[in-house]
């Protein structure tokens, strides 16, 4: 066992799509409370201003009240929006587990629209022997479901 095996590793979630709209139009949907509420979640206290704190109310779980606490970390109009995304509770597994993450939106003009890239980073994967063991078991479980999943590939 070495340090890297004990150190928590983090994983990112990335969604990257080209949308047939201008960066300015997409920017509005990312930074206007009313529009955010129509596709993401209704924010409380949001303004596209660096340092601004805001919240999302989601479904509570166990010791967690369901509130996601966010803070705007970076704003470059029509190009980049970054906010921290924190919530959950130590006592929860899966849904409602402790989260200390960062969401980064990047808009790049491309032919026919805008490439919108979301990177939600900082998901912790615990790496110790027990977790590794569990993961190998998890793998087998996952693998058993591949047939069903691959049915969704065209």
């Amino acid at each position, binding site marked *: 066992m070495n340090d890297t095996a004990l150190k928590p590793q983090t994983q990112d979630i990335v*969604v990257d799509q080209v*949308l047939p709209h201008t960066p300015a139009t997409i920017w*509005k949907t990312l930074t206007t409370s009313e*529009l955010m509420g129509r*596709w993401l979640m209704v924010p409380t206290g949001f303004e596209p201003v660096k340092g601004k704190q805001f919240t999302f109310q989601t479904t509570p779980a166990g010791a967690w009240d369901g509130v996601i606490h966010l803070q705007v970390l970076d704003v470059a109009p029509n190009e980049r929006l970054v906010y921290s995304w924190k919530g959950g509770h130590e006592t929860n597994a899966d849904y409602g587990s402790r989260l200390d993450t960062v969401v980064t939106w990047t808009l790049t003009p491309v032919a026919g629209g805008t490439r919108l890239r979301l990177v939600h980073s900082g998901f912790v994967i615990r790496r110790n022997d027990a977790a590794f063991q569990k993961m190998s078991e998890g*793998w*087998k479980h996952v693998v058993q479901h591949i047939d069903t*999943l691959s049915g969704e590939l065209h």
Partner: protein
Amino acid sequence: MPETAAINAVMRTLADPTRRAVFERIVGSEEITVAELTRGSGVTQGAISQHLKSLKQAGLVAERPAGRNVFYRAEPNGLAPLVDWMSLYGVFWRERFIRLRTLLKEIDP
């Protein structure tokens, strides 16, 4: 979209039942050789080698040559694209992108 390509590669590779069985045996052992994988598999060593090649290309398996043998082991991050795709937030954000597309169509037809 490189992320999608990675998920497709993993799923396509594991969609084959024989290849999946090979992968499960590799996951279940620390390190294993082609000869050991072939034993009791009901397919030829050549077929096993082909499956190993596909598994390696999909990033699911790593190899370690030692003398005349090559040892295969599961790549720890091999299933990461799939885990990401299935995770709570992976599903959440993909669903939100669909809603965003619908909203954009409404406000900017």
